């Protein structure tokens, strides 16, 4: 370690959602004068509107802070922000790999939650020095001592003397900065060795091309260098290197081992700069890449269709633009008889899916219809072929299936003791396999289950929240493909299959699911002038049926005097509504009704 490196600290902040990660980051920036209070927009790091509203960080970012420590020395603190959600686990682990230490923020009114643990374990796996920060001590229900004990007992790291702060009111932030400098090791790495940089994030900028965030592990990098991405072998000329501070990108001459910064190299597409990949020099480069690179694979799939079929091209453009900055988003065109032309999109998880859907609606002003989330099934066919199915309507008929497999996850649920019974029932009902149960303390329990992912995407999270009055938290990771008795469940309106409503379910779940969705269809399809039979079928066997009765009353009996305009407006409005209807064979369905059916809320909760 040289003198330069001794003055660098690379760290992340990790936390369960809403425990105050972004607020703490803001305070650190403010306290270290990286940004003055006046210039400070709340939650500077989360610069997407959606991030601010949801209080989550979607994309990782890195900010460089110059801080004069109480010893009078000036330090460079690189704060690498991480997405806080389970869907982005892989991205989190790459960000953590770029650091030597992490602040583990725990809400003193809540204690440890599922993602606190998941993130802490990730940090431990990356050999990071973990500094607990107990937050929200300004709240009356704060219990700092209990949370300290919990951190020590459950995670096994020393919490005695760790900073207890209120990020909101800016209390004890100096202690956090001291802890970063005193507690987190400075980076090492050899400036003379062949270049090795870890990519932990990248985004597309229309002027610069792809901006790649890296941590330099070994070597030196400057503008004009020819670099190589080790996973693909692609080579580029570096245009610019620099670092990000609170005000934006700041060019610098070179990045050296231990530094965190960015590279631009006229790269057109972020799919070429995968998170976790290693950057080296084209000549005399490193012989081995850094460990742990993998491609983020979509786990959850859903069809996205424009509510107005004429806006198909707008939707494609929106997805293309989103993909520029989100390599984990995949999409390909698909056609549905019910919904017309759209795209089958792949997401890292449910939250990722919701975020993308919401961004399409907000940032591109598009009304969309989305089909129920699905997972990828693996089918071994009787002819020996193995196929993967990401769209339920492509699920083959049972006679050609030798064995069907579905993805399962290891789920980790933390809950107050009193809800354990209800949650175990829920997991049981969702075909979970109980692994073990651990008391975190006298009041809280950690449960481990193996659950089919298709049950998780079927609104498991909401059901969990409602059974625990919002207190339980969930974290999961892919486990394996497990053999399963799966069937394809079709729904028919007026005798015609509605492809967008096809589900893959475990055979034991087919009947209750069929009944429930048929009922929901009945409740959500508005009456029309003829009776509409609704059927649920496995193959040709109908297993549930309902009927939407014929419309009998839709009249303006009232006279409204001579106010003809009002009558006309009423009918015109009705006409507008009609235009938005989707015609499924002879049946008209509003997009809202469609979504209501597809949004699989757990009505027995």
């Amino acid at each position, binding site marked *: 370690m040289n003198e330069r490196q001794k003055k660098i600290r690379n760290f992340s902040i990790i936390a369960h959602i809403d425990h105050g990660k972004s607020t703490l980051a803001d305070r650190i920036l403010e306290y270290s004068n990286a940004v003055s209070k006046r210039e400070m927009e709340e939650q500077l790091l989360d610069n997407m509107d959606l991030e601010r509203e949801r209080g989550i960080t979607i994309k990782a970012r890195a900010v460089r802070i110059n801080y004069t420590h109480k010893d009078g020395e000036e330090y460079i603190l690189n704060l690498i922000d991480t997405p806080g959600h389970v869907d982005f686990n892989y991205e989190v682990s790459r960000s953590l790999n770029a650091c030597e230490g992490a602040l583990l923020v725990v809400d003193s009114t809540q204690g440890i939650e599922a993602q606190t643990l998941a993130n802490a374990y990730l940090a431990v796996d990356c050999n990071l020095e973990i500094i607990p920060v107990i937050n929200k001590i300004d709240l009356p229900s704060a219990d700092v001592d209990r949370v300290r004990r919990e951190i020590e007992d459950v995670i096994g790291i020393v919490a005695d003397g760790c900073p207890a702060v209120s990020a909101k009111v800016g209390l004890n932030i100096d202690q956090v900065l001291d802890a970063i400098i005193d507690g987190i090791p400075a980076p090492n790495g050899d400036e003379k060795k062949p270049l090795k940089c870890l990519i932990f994030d990248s985004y597309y900028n229309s002027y610069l091309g792809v901006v790649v965030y890296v941590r330099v592990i070994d070597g030196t990098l400057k503008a004009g260098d020819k670099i190589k991405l080790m996973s693909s072998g692609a080579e580029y000329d570096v245009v610019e290197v620099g670092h990000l501070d609170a005000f934006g990108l700041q060019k610098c001459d070179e990045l050296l081992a231990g530094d965190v910064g960015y590279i631009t190299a006229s790269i057109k597409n972020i799919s070429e700069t995968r998170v976790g990949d290693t950057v080296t020099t084209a000549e005399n480069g490193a012989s081995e890449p850094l460990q742990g690179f993998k491609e983020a694979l979509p786990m959850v799939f859903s069809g996205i269709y424009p509510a107005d079929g004429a806006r198909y091209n707008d939707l494609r453009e929106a997805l293309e633009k989103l993909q520029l900055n989100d390599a984990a988003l995949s999409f390909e065109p698909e056609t549905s008889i019910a919904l017309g032309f759209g795209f089958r999109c792949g997401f890292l998880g449910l939250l990722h899916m919701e975020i993308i859907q919401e961004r399409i609606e907000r940032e591109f002003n598009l009304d969309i219809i989305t089909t129920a989330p699905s997972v990828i099934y693996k089918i071994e066919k009787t002819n020996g072929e193995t196929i993967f199915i990401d769209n339920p309507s492509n699920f083959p008929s049972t006679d050609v299936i030798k064995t069907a497999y579905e993805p399962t996850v290891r789920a980790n649920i933390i809950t107050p003791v009193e809800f354990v019974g209800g949650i175990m029932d829920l997991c049981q009902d969702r075909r979970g396999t109980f692994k073990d149960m651990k008391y975190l303390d006298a009041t809280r329990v950690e449960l481990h289950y193996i659950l089919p992912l298709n049950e998780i995407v079927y609104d498991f999270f909401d059901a969990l929240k409602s059974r625990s009055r919002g207190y339980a938290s969930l974290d999961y990771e892919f486990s394996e493909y497990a053999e399963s008795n799966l069937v394809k469940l079709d729904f028919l309106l007026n005798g015609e299959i509605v492809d967008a409503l096809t589900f893959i379910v475990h055979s034991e779940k087919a009947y209750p699911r069929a009944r429930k969705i048929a009922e929901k269809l009945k409740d959500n399809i508005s009456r029309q002038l003829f009776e509409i039979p609704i059927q649920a079928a496995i193959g040709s066997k109908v297993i549930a049926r309902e009927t939407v009765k014929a*419309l009998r009353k839709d009249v303006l009996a009232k*006279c409204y005097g001579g106010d*003809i*305009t009002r009558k006309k407006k009423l009918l*015109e409005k*009705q*006409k507008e509504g009609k235009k938005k209807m989707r015609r499924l064979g002879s049946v008209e369905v509003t997009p809202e009704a469609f979504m209501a059916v597809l949004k699989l809320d757990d009505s027995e909760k």
Partner: protein
Amino acid sequence: MRALGLYIHIPFCKRKCNYCDFYSLSCTQGAQISEYINSLSVQFKTQSHLFSDCVFDTVFLGGGTPSLLSPNDILRLFSAIRENFNIDDNAEISIEANPGTLNKEKLTTLRDAGVNRMSIGLQSYFDSELELLGRIHTLSDFERTFSLARSEGFDNINIDIMYALPNQKKADFLKTLDYVVEKSPEHISSYCLKIEKNTPFFKTVNPVSLPNEDTQYEMYIDMCDILSKSGYEQYEISNFSKMGKRCKHNMKYWLSQEYVSFGPGAHSYFNGERYSYSPNLHDYVSAIKDGKLPYAIIQESADIGENEKRDEYVMLKLRLCDGICEADFKNLFGISVAEAYPDIEKYIKSGHVLRYNGALRFSSKGFFVSNYILSDILFNN
């Protein structure tokens, strides 16, 4: 001479009913009403020249509660009307009346002023329902008013009733209907309750307490059946009359004939334009006082296009049991109904629209889903 309808809005009530969203103020001060009548008289005078080549063959005092006017104001209003407008000798002159506001003196005054049609709001047979609706009268008030009107010589009376009230059973409504039929008025208007925004009902009525769609449908179908058997002709979705006793004024609305209206919130159709006065009494009265004409006019449709005119014609005409005469339609618009509205065919097939004697009209079941059908076939521009 060009025939016109005249509508005068009286925007005062003793108390507003819980379901009503017409523009009206709760008022018990005679002075305010008298001032309003003064304003109307001024407006009549300044605008009478616009209608010098017209003859008014219907006059309709609506509200609000026109029967709230004092005998003196009634006389002043009618003399102002007659001074400024040509009123046909055989004009139908109607007034809306609330049973809680009439006495013998007022009835005599109305009759002497030339009123020859009385529309009395009963709404329900049951005092409990009347209270729920926020009506200011009881059944016995109605009973007394109705006999009084008869004995004063009113031989053209409408009774207003309502159905599909909160918690109402079909049998309850049929009881109201039986009672009305027994009274043998010349005309019956029967409206399905609609919960409007900006009414107390919008906040207080739980939609679950309303009769369901099927019950409402049965109420309607049974009503049409009972009234037809009792000698009433259904001539519009919600209106029934004895032979020759259709409301001529309301017919103008549905036949796209011209009518001129006065008062805040009142709507006119004149010289091919639809317009209204903004629903604010204070603005209305002070505009007249300041000599500002034409007051706060809300232009609704100046010079509407041919297609729109056609849509409006169909929308209004199909409210009537006479329906659309196919030959008339072709004469007016130069295109057949089937060509202009090809989607109508499927409703003829399904029995919601009937075609006979060269006319198209809704069947009873068609009437009750007419919004669905009209919004499907019209407004395709």
